[in-house]
């Protein structure tokens, strides 16, 4: 299994859609074969279409607010000693998280395909909120599938979705979280694929959805590359790009331009949700060695039992609370290009406390998993090393959880 150079990772799959010969694919019911094939043809056409690219760039700039800023966290760096800690403040993007890139692109594709209805899944509520925003912007009718447990714990995002005119469909089956929301959303698409477009909220699902999402979020690393050169006149010699990984859409977007670099120069570190310290449950299939399995149309490492039943997961962060992970991260793991670890709920909360104490920044619980790792490794590293964290979400949605857990 080997990575190729000069080809975007999203395109390094075989004719059946597998990365590294075994990750990804399209394990879908027959009914979805045609809509998935139509979408694949349309996407391949659009991404080569100059006008479409112009349109994308226009909305990325004028609607999403690209580029998001890239700043040094001076106080935190000084406090920890060792490496310099920097952050890409992706949460500045319209709506407060990276999910807006994928949502905007899906809305544009939906329009191009002449469909008027768009549906999507959501965990933390960001994917749903952004899709509802994009739907409103482009005049599409929008339905969002969300686990009943997540509706309760991410109320601010639900309010936003409703305000944007989207219908939230609560999902009561299974663990009532993201995994069930994705299943229910796919079921809805099976029944309505003739007039409805489906947006998968991360780099998961059947091959084409991994590709569209990765293509959309890669904006983050395109910006970062330019910003690095602006600041340092070159790409510095020692960089560590730290990103939280749930489905893995922000991590792929943050890394995509840097995958071809040597690991010695740019290390990629993915941080999964380790769950509560005292719990056996987690959402860290890569770093806790889960077996390869098939979930939601893709083969990937997946938390499951010996029989192939999908395990319940647990994490303070709804956005990372997913039993499987993107096939492209499985590929990056097995080719050893990226390193994956996890942070517990407690680690993330402590990181939140520290970051907000020292910096004028309010990262949501998802990127706090990445900050936890940055805080852990920074003191041991040289001053020349840059740790860059993707601060991919804003903590406004977490206010109820933070109030309860940190009394603030």
């Amino acid at each position, binding site marked *: 299994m080997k990575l190729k150079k000069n080809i975007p990772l999203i395109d390094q799959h075989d004719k*059946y859609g597998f990365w590294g010969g075994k990750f990804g*694919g*399209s*394990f*879908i*019911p*027959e*009914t*979805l*074969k*045609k*809509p998935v094939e139509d979408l694949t043809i349309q996407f391949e056409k659009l991404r080569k279409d100059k006008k479409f690219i112009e349109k994308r760039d226009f909305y990325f700039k004028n609607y999403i607010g690209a580029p998001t800023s890239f700043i040094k966290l001076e106080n935190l760096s000084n406090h920890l000693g060792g490496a310099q800690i920097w952050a890409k403040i992706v949460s500045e993007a319209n709506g407060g998280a990276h999910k807006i890139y994928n949502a905007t692109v899906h809305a544009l594709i939906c329009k191009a395909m002449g469909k008027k209805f768009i549906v999507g899944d959501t965990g933390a509520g960001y994917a749903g909120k952004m899709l509802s925003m994009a739907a409103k912007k482009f005049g599409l009718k929008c339905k969002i599938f969300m686990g009943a447990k997540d509706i309760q714990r991410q109320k601010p995002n639900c309010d936003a979705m409703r305000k944007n005119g989207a219908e939230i469909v609560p999902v009561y*089956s*299974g663990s009532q979280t993201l*995994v069930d929301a994705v*299943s229910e959303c*796919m*079921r809805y698409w*099976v*029944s*309505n*694929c*003739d007039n409805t477009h489906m947006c998968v909220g991360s780099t998961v699902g059947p091959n084409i959805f991994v590709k569209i999402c990765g293509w959309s979020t890669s904006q983050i690393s395109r910006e970062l590359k330019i910003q690095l050169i602006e600041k340092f006149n070159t790409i510095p010699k020692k960089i560590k790009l730290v990103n939280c990984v749930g489905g893995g859409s922000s991590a792929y977007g943050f890394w995509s331009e840097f995958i071809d670099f040597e690991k010695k120069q740019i290390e990629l570190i993915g941080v999964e949700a380790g769950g509560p310290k005292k719990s056996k449950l987690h959402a860290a299939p890569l770093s806790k060695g889960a*077996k390869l*399995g*098939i*979930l*939601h*149309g893709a083969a990937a490492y997946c938390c*499951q039992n*010996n*029989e*192939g*039943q*999908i395990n319940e997961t647990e994490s303070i962060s709804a956005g990372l609370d997913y039993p499987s992970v993107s096939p492209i991260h499985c590929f990056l793991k097995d080719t050893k290009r990226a390193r994956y670890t996890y942070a517990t709920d407690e680690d993330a909360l402590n990181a939140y406390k520290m970051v907000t104490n020292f910096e004028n920044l309010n990262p949501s619980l998802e990127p706090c998993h990445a900050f936890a790792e940055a805080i852990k490794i920074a003191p041991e590293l040289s001053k020349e090393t840059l740790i860059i964290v993707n601060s991919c979400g804003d903590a406004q949605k977490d206010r109820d959880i933070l109030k309860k857990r940190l009394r603030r």
Partner: protein
Amino acid sequence: MSISLINQSFNKAKEENRPALLTYTVAGDYTKKKSLEILKSISKYADICELGFPHNTPIADGGQIQTSAYRAIKNGIKINDVFSIVSKFKKIKKDKPIILMGYYNMIYQYNDEKFISKCKKSNVDGLIIVDLPYPENKNFAFKCKKKGINFIQLISPTTSKKRLKKIVKDSHDMIYYISMLSTTGGKLKVSPKNILKKYLEIKKLNKFKNVVIGFGITEKTINSLNKADGLVVGSRICSEISKSLKNRQNVVTNVTNVVKRLKNKII
């Protein structure tokens, strides 16, 4: 070559000038023992019995079958129990075809070859895998064929003409036509006329393949499609199990009565 039990069942129904009746129940619903009892009892009226091996993330199933699947898993059903239910059933009803149906991850975790061998050993006649579509399933289907197990291809209203031809060409004895864009258990939203139109399109490509129609089949709709080679009823049966449990009634009796009524509508 000998005729498969599946084809024998279709032939028998054809002699009686009616479609074959296929039932779907979930193994282990509502207990291992009871699901075997249900199977034995309904097989008096059903020509072919589909038995689901339940998965907890079924992306193509509606509420009724999901409920049955979750109930079975909660009651501890394991894949080897499914095989033992089939073996026990086949000891009494060796001529009644059994088709296992489920999602690929469970087979993948069990190991493809091991799963197919175990099917053979337990006298499983056919396999339907919801999320292993054509052409990705070609290799798997070939392995089944070598062991004398029917791999059943699915066709849906969205299947293109070009694809249809290829699927029919590579299919085994039986083809499953999904009546409409829906998960299982949806209300029949397409007219029987339109369903039969697509059905005939499939038959025209190869009249020797037995084509069954499933999704949205109930006592109300079954008669309108009786020109088909076979008709599959699943959600209607699963919901009867749920209802009987809720009303504390005899599940086996109630479910058997439903299947009997369905059968009466097509003779």
